[in-house]
C-alpha cells in the first residue's frame, strides 16, 4: 500500500454531477449528513433539472449537488468548487466552468464513450486529449469497478448502474476522511426489505473506499476539522423540513390543530410530504384538487379554529390570489408559504429566484394588505414559519411566509432550539356572548374576535362583501368602506409595534449599506465580510420583515452614503425602498435561476466604493 499524506484544509467545496438518474442528490445528501455529524459548518446547493429522468447523457439532464463545508464559518454553498465528481461527459461539460483552476476532477471514464461525448458536444475525449491539464484529473472507470464489486451477485446491468453513485461516495468519504457508518445505517434501513440491493450498495460503497485506499491513484487525503460552532446540540436540516417543523411547533404552542391544504408543486412539495408524516401530532394534511382548493380549505379550517396553512410556489400563489383577498376581508389567520422559483409562468420549476416579492405585496385586487416575512437561511425557515404563525394568530390576518428553491432544498447545521423557550402563542376563542360583535377590535392589535362555529350564542356570518365596522354586517356606505380599508391597513402596520428593530451587521453608518432579504443572506454576508476585512466601510442589513418593515429602517438607510440592494429579480425590494424612504438605492440583479456568488456582490461593492473615492 502506498504511503498517503494527510493535508489539513479549512474549507472545501465539492460538486457531485451526473445524469438526473444517477442519484447525485442522494449522494450529495449522504455526504452532507456525514459531514454535518462530523461537526463541520456547511451549506448545500442541489441543482437539478425539471425532468425526472431526462434522456441519459444529455447536457440538460445533468443533475448537480454542491456542498461547501469547513472548520470555519460557512455562509454559502461556495462560489466555485474545488472538486468536481463527473459521472459522464455532459456533467463535466456543464460544470467545468465552476471548478477552480487547479481543482480536482474525478471522472467516471465509462461515462465518456463516443455516444456520451457526442451528446455533450465534445469533439475529442477531454479525459485523454490533454485539454484538462490545468486540473488534477483522476479518470476512474467507476461503472466497471462497481460491476466487479458485485460481479458474483448476478444483478441486472441496470441495478449495477444504479449503484455506481455509492462507489463515488465511497471514494469521497476516503478522500475527506469521513466515516461511512451513517450511510451504512441509512442503506440498511432504506433497503431493509430489498436484501439484494442493500448488499450491492453496501459492497459498492466500501469498494469505492477500498479502491482509493489501496491504489496509487490518490496520493493525498484531506482532513477538515470541526467548525467552532456555538455550543449545543445540532442537526442538519433543509429549509423545507425546517419550515414544516416551524409550523408544527407553532400549532403545538398555540394548542391548535394544524391544517394544511396544498397542491403539489416544485419546490414546495416537500413541505406537504413532511407534514403528512406527523399524524400523531394531529396534523391534518389535505392534498387538494388545485391551489384554489388548497388555500380555501385552509381558510375554512381556520374559520373552524385550526391553524390554516397553504404551501405552494409562485404559480400557485397566482391561483390563490382571490382567496387571499377573502382572507384579508374576513380577517382570519392563514399562513401562505411561497417557496419561490424561477418565473414567470411555469418558468424554471427547479431553480431559485426571489421575484415574487411584489406579487406578495401587491398581487391582489383592491387594497388588500398582507404581512410578509422571509427566511434568510435553510434553518431560519423554522423560526420564520413559527413567527409567521404567531403573528397571523395574534393579528387575525393572512400572512406570506417566503422561502425559495435554494433555501427549501439547501441545508445547513442547525442549533436545535429549546422548544420550551420559544415565544408563547396564545390565541383565544371568543366565547362570551355579552357584547359580541364579529368586527369589534382589540384596541392594541386591531384584530377582531375569533368566534368559531360550535360556540353557543355567537352565531354570525362572514364573507367577502364589505363589512360594517363593528357589526360585520354587509355594508356599502362610502365612508364605511374607506374607514374599513384604512382599518385593515392600520392593523397590518401595527405589527411593526412588536417586531424587532432591524439590526445592521457591521457599523451603523458609513460608505455603503448592502440591503438584502431572503435567501441571499449568506452570499451578502460573505461579500461584506471580505470587504470589512480589507477595512472598507461596508455594512449589511437583512430584512426578515418586508411588510410591515421594522420602524427603524428609514433611520438606518439615511446613515449611509450608498445603498446597494442585491436581489435575484429585476429589482423589487429596491423599488419599495426607493418609494418608501426616498433613498437613491441601487440594485444588483441576477435572474439566472441560481443564487448569488459572493464574488459577484463583492465586485459590485468594490465598484461602488471606487466611485466614492
Amino acid at each position, binding site marked *: 500500500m502506498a504511503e498517503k499524506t494527510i493535508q489539513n484544509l479549512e474549507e472545501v467545496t465539492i460538486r457531485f454531477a451526473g445524469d438526473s438518474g444517477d442519484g447525485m442528490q442522494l449522494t450529495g445528501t449522504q455526504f452532507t*449528513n456525514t459531514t*454535518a*455529524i*462530523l*461537526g463541520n459548518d456547511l451549506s448545500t446547493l442541489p441543482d437539478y433539472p425539471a425532468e425526472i429522468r431526462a434522456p441519459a447523457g444529455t447536457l440538460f439532464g445533468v443533475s448537480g449537488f454542491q456542498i461547501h463545508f469547513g472548520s470555519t464559518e460557512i455562509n454559502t454553498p461556495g462560489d466555485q468548487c474545488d472538486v468536481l465528481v463527473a459521472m459522464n461527459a455532459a456533467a463535466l461539460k456543464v460544470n467545468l466552468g465552476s471548478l477552480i483552476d487547479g481543482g480536482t476532477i474525478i471522472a467516471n471514464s465509462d461515462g465518456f464513450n463516443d455516444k456520451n461525448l457526442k451528446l455533450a458536444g465534445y469533439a475529442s475525449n477531454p479525459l485523454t486529449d490533454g485539454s484538462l491539464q490545468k486540473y488534477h484529473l483522476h479518470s476512474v472507470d467507476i461503472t466497471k469497478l462497481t460491476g466487479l464489486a458485485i460481479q458474483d451477485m448476478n444483478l441486472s446491468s441496470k441495478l449495477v448502474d444504479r449503484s455506481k453513485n455509492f462507489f463515488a461516495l465511497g471514494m469521497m468519504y476516503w478522500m475527506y476522511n469521513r466515516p461511512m457508518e*451513517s450511510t451504512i445505517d441509512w442503506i440498511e434501513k432504506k433497503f431493509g426489505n430489498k436484501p439484494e440491493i442493500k448488499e450491492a450498495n453496501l459492497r459498492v460503497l466500501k469498494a469505492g473506499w477500498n479502491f482509493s485506499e489501496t491504489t496509487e491513484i490518490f496520493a493525498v487525503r484531506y482532513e477538515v476539522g470541526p467548525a467552532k460552532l*456555538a*455550543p*449545543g*446540540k*445540532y*442537526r442538519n436540516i433543509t429549509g423545507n423540513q425546517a419550515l414544516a417543523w416551524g409550523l*408544527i*411547533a407553532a*400549532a403545538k404552542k398555540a*394548542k*391548535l*390543530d394544524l*391544517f394544511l391544504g396544498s397542491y403539489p408543486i416544485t419546490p414546495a412539495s416537500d413541505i406537504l410530504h413532511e407534514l403528512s408524516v*406527523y*399524524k*400523531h*401530532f*394531529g*396534523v*391534518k394534511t389535505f392534498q*387538494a*384538487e*388545485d391551489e*384554489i*382548493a388548497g388555500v*380555501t*380549505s385552509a*381558510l*375554512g*379550517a*381556520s*374559520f*373552524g*379554529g*385550526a391553524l*390554516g396553512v397553504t404551501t405552494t410556489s409562485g404559480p400557485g400563489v397566482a391561483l390563490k390570489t382571490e382567496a387571499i383577498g*377573502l382572507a384579508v376581508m374576513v380577517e382570519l389567520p392563514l399562513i401562505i408559504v411561497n417557496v419561490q422559483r424561477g418565473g414567470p409562468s411555469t418558468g424554471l420549476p427547479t431553480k431559485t429566484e426571489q421575484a415574487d416579492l411584489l406579487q406578495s405585496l401587491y398581487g391582489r385586487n383592491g387594497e388588500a394588505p398582507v404581512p410578509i416575512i422571509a427566511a434568510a437561511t435553510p434553518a431560519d425557515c423554522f423560526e420564520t414559519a413559527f413567527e409567521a404563525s404567531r403573528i397571523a394568530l395574534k393579528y387575525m390576518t393572512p400572512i406570506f411566509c417566503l422561502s425559495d428553491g435554494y433555501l427549501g432544498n439547501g441545508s445547513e447545521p442547525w442549533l*436545535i*432550539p429549546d422548544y*420550551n423557550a420559544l415565544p408563547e402563542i396564545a390565541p383565544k*376563542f371568543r*366565547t362570551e356572548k355579552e357584547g359580541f360583535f364579529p368586527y369589534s377590535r382589540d384596541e392594541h392589535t386591531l384584530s377582531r374576535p375569533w368566534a*368559531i*362555529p*360550535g*360556540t*353557543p*350564542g*355567537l*352565531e*354570525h*356570518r362572514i*364573507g*367577502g362583501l364589505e363589512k360594517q365596522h363593528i357589526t360585520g354586517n354587509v355594508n356599502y356606505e362610502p365612508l364605511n368602506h374607506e374607514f374599513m380599508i384604512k382599518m385593515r391597513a392600520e392593523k397590518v402596520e401595527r405589527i411593526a409595534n412588536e417586531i424587532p428593530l432591524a439590526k445592521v451587521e457591521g457599523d451603523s453608518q458609513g460608505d455603503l449599506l448592502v440591503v438584502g432579504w431572503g435567501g441571499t443572506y449568506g452570499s451578502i454576508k460573505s461579500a461584506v465580510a471580505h470587504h470589512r476585512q480589507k477595512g472598507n466601510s461596508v455594512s449589511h442589513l437583512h430584512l426578515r420583515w418586508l411588510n410591515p418593515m421594522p420602524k427603524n429602517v428609514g433611520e438606518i438607510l439615511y446613515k449611509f452614503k450608498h445603498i446597494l440592494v442585491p436581489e435575484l429579480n429585476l429589482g423589487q425590494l429596491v423599488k419599495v425602498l426607493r418609494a418608501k424612504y426616498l433613498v437613491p438605492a441601487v440594485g444588483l440583479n441576477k435572474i439566472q435561476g441560481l443564487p448569488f456568488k459572493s464574488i459577484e456582490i463583492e465586485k459590485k461593492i468594490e465598484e461602488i466604493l471606487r466611485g466614492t473615492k
Partner: protein
Amino acid sequence: MSVLVDEVMKLSPPPSDQKASSKDFQSDQDVRWCPGCGDYSILAQTQRVMPDLGIPRHRMVFVSGIGCSSRFPYYMNTYGFHSIHGRATAIASGLKMARPELSMWVVTGDGDGLSIGGNHMIHLLRRNLDINVLLFNNQIYGLTKGQYSPTSEKGKITKSTPFGSIDYPFNPAALALGSSATFVARTLDRDPKHMQAIIKRAAEHKGTSFVEVYQNCNVFNDGAFFQFTEKDTKDDTVVYLEHGKPLTFGKEKDKGIRLNGFSPEVVSLKDGKWSVNDLLVHNEKDTTLSFILADMTYKSGLPRPIGIFLAIDRPVYEQEMVRQIVFAQEKRGDGDMVKLLNSGDTWTVQ
C-alpha cells in the same frame, strides 16, 4: 380535536325545554331576493326542516359562493360564510375536516357550483365528506343579470347569447353520479313538501348529499320549470322516484316507466298491455339504475325524474382522516415536539 376547540365544544347552550322553531333559524337580516324568486321557498323549507334535525343552531354552518343563491347564509341564524365564486365546496371541505362534528351545508348556484366551481364540486363528491349541498338550479346567471349558465338549454337566447347558446347543458344529477356521489336528489322550489322531505333525507345521509333544486328566477328565466311545477302540466311531465315503488305518473297514475333493454320507455297502464308489475321499480341503492334514471333528464318523450336517485353508504372522508390520526397516536403516542426536534442524526458541540 385541539385543546382550545375542545373547551369551546364543552360550553353548553342556554337551557331550553322547547324544541327550536323555524323562526329560530331566521337571522335579523332583511331578505333581499327579487319578489317572487324561487329562493324564498328554499329558504323557508330549509328553516322549516332545521328544527326537526335536532342539531343546535350553533353547530350548523352554511357556506356559499357568489350568486343570488349564495346570499342564503345571511338569512340563516347559524354560522355562515359567504365566500368567493365557486369555492364554497372547498371552504366547507376544509372546515369539515377541521371540525367533523359540525353540521355542514353548502348553498350554491348552477354557475357557482357547476361552472367556476365545477372542479371543486366533483372532487367533493368523490371524496364523500359529510356535507349537504343545495344547488339552486335556475338555468341562468341571476346575480350578473341574465347570462346563460352551464345548465341553460341549447339555443337559449340571453344577453351573452343573442343568437342562441351553442353550449350543451350539464345534467347535474348525472354529473354528480359520474363523480361517484353517494347521495343524489332533485326537488322543486314549488313543491314544498317534497323539498322538505328531501332536505331531511340529505341531512341524515352520512356523506356528501347533492340536492339539485329547480328554482325559478322570475326576472331572468321566468317559467324555466313551470312545465314541471304547474298544475296543468306537472302530472304528465314529472315522475317521482320513490324507493321500492314502481315508476308511475299521470293524473290518474295511469302511465309508467318500463325498461326496454337498458332504455326507459313510457307505457300506458290503461290499454291492458302493461300492468304495474311490468314497471321499473325504484331502488335508491342501485348505482346502475341511478345512471339510467338520471339519463332520462333531457330525453324527449320521458317525464323528468324528481326525487332521490341514489343513497348509498361509503366511508366518509373526514372520518377516515380522523381514523389515521387516531391510529398514529395510538401507535406512536401524542406528538412530542422536543423529541421531534432532537430526532435523527444529531451531534453536540461542547
